[in-house]
């Protein structure tokens, strides 16, 4: 008897899905520009974006200096986290892996903690703040680069990928332990400054910093798109990958470097933002019903950008002057989605049972 293939999308269904996602991205992006403490009409936003004079100069300043960089950051961060999460889930063949399993965010936290709570005991905190958040970005970047170097050094010696996963978690825990010691000995003001950083923020990225963030994330995403074939072969296991002519070391270096570049940069500019990296690949698999990275990777990029834009809109608490930490919003959106996926499929539809 011919078994009916129910789970695969037709080409037509897939095309419709792509169109919906692209439209969704545009709508979410515009909505993020409209909505905030004050609502700016769509017509005005479009005029500002087109470079024409709006009715209200304040609106122009809000959109161009505040909301546009924030929305662009959300798009870049959403894409970066979704893609690095997908890569880690595939490489480690683990449905709960995410951008931070290698210890990237712990490394970044360590860098920032040393800067905020360690170095500033010698300099005044005010001096640091005057230097702008470039220092924080640099410290976070150095911290995650340190972890990356450790992971790469180990990955050249260790054959077994599960050992690497455990080592990544250990490196992360080690970094967190040092962070705790720093926290214990630091003053209340500095502690709060650090805690605020860990809550994540899309709004702190200036247009000038976007000039760094966007190209670096762009390079990371390009590296991922070039790894589509490697990811597809890696998905079925390293033995198969090797027997199909892949060089495991080169592949690991490429994938770990692009993941660290993406996750490390995002963490440096916006703090550790959780759940996007874990949830988005699952939503992608569910919508596209495929494990093929040729589809899943661009799909996850679009979904990540959309979800982070929506999270940002919610975190603005539209109509009020206060803002919630973006990390709480992504968690509150992400957790129900994961629970729903688990209950619906009885297990996360990803890897070997």
């Amino acid at each position, binding site marked *: 008897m011919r078994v009916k293939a129910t789970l695969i999308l037709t080409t037509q269904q897939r095309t419709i899905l792509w169109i919906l996602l692209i439209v969704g991205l545009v709508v979410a992006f515009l909505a993020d520009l409209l909505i905030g403490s004050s609502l700016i009409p769509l017509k005005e936003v479009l005029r500002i974006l087109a470079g024409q004079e709006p009715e209200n100069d304040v609106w122009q300043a809000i959109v161009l200096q505040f909301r546009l960089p924030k929305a662009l950051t959300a798009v870049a961060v959403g894409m970066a986290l979704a893609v690095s999460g997908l890569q880690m889930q595939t490489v480690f063949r683990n449905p709960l892996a995410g951008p931070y399993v290698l210890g990237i965010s712990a490394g970044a936290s360590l860098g920032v903690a040393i800067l905020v709570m360690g170095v500033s005991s010698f300099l005044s905190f005010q001096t640091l703040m005057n230097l702008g958040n470039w220092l924080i970005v640099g410290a976070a970047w150095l911290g995650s680069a340190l972890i990356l170097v450790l992971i790469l050094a180990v990955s050249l010696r260790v054959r077994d990928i599960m050992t690497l996963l455990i080592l990544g978690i250990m490196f992360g825990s080690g970094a967190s332990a040092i962070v705790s010691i720093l926290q214990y000995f630091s003053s209340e003001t500095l502690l709060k400054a650090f805690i605020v950083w860990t809550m994540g923020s899309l709004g702190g990225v200036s247009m000038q910093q976007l000039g760094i963030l966007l190209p670096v994330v762009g390079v990371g995403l390009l590296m991922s798109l070039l790894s589509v074939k490697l990811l597809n072969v890696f998905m079925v296991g390293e033995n198969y990958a090797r027997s199909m002519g892949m060089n495991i070391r080169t592949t690991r270096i490429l994938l770990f470097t692009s993941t660290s570049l993406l996750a490390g940069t995002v963490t440096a500019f916006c703090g550790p933002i959780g759940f996007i990296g874990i949830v988005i690949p699952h939503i992608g698999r569910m919508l596209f019903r495929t494990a093929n990275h040729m589809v899943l990777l661009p799909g996850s990029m679009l979904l990540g950008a959309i979800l982070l834009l929506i999270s940002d809109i919610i975190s603005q608490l539209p109509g009020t002057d206060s803002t919630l930490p973006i990390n709480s919003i992504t968690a509150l959106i992400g957790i129900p989605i994961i629970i729903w996926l688990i209950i619906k499929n009885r297990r996360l539809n990803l890897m*070997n049972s």
Partner: protein
Amino acid sequence: MEPGENNILSLQDVAIGYWDRQHKTVFEHINLSASEGELIALVGKNGVGKSTLLRTIARLQPELQGTILYRDKELSSYSRPLFARLLSFVSTEIVNIPNLSVFDFVALGRSPYTNGFGRLEKRDKQATLRAISQVGMGHMVHNNLTEISDGERQRIMVARTLAQDTPFIILDEPTAFLDLPNRYEIIHLLHELAREQNKTILFSTHDLSIALQEADKIWLLNKDQLHEGAPEDLILNNSFEQVFRSKLLTFDRRRGDFFMPKTLSSSVTLKNPNSLDDYWLRKALSRVGVAIDTDNSRVTSGLTIELLQHEPIQCKLKLPNEQEIEIRSFYQLNRLIRQFIDS
């Protein structure tokens, strides 16, 4: 190596094992060969090093010593991408990735031929579809790997190696986890591929009787020795018996299979013996330790059986006290005999 033989693969004094802090040798002095178009079964007890040997030939781990030649050139002289076009490998891992379709999975076999993005050209799609239909799964091209049975999945694993289009295929325990008919089917499929496409296929297995029936050659690994030859050669020179003999098992050379001999401590008299038809009756009685005696040489239980019909069985069991019981199944017969002997 014998002269004039067309070897695709030969192992010369190879040692296999692992490079650890102190390197551990699993097996050494291996001399084996494989010819084009042969189906070769690798058999041996658990832990003797079958997987290690297969992985070494597939270049998933290095040999510790000796030379492995593929078409008269050392394995290491081939670049990995080129080697992927010469030898394909199926491991024991079950690939069961929920959102992966049969087509997408088999198409991965085209990786050595596709460009850097893994883009499938027309010839790759054709090769993939051909591979899937060659293993008889053409109707399931668009199903997901989770939707198919274990036997079908194993066929798909074979299809991927066909898409990879290599003259040499290695499979590590392709019959594990399968039920009996599926075991026969998958080995039969390998047998046909070796015949019709002149592929050399090497697989490890614990299914001796299937291997003996279908393989052109057996590589038999024992603790420190190694036998190579047609199944019949190894049966008749007692290699199998040496390797697998145990307290419980005896090798039946005529059938080429192992069986567990039973101690027969008692006997019944069969009133109307007919050696051809008594096969199943003897089998059933041997399980309760009872032989059929015609010459009264054994301790007799005093029971007599009169066969009335063979299929399905129908007989009369006569007790020493002349009481007769009508019997209509082997189950009933064995139950009564056990009750009688135990009391």
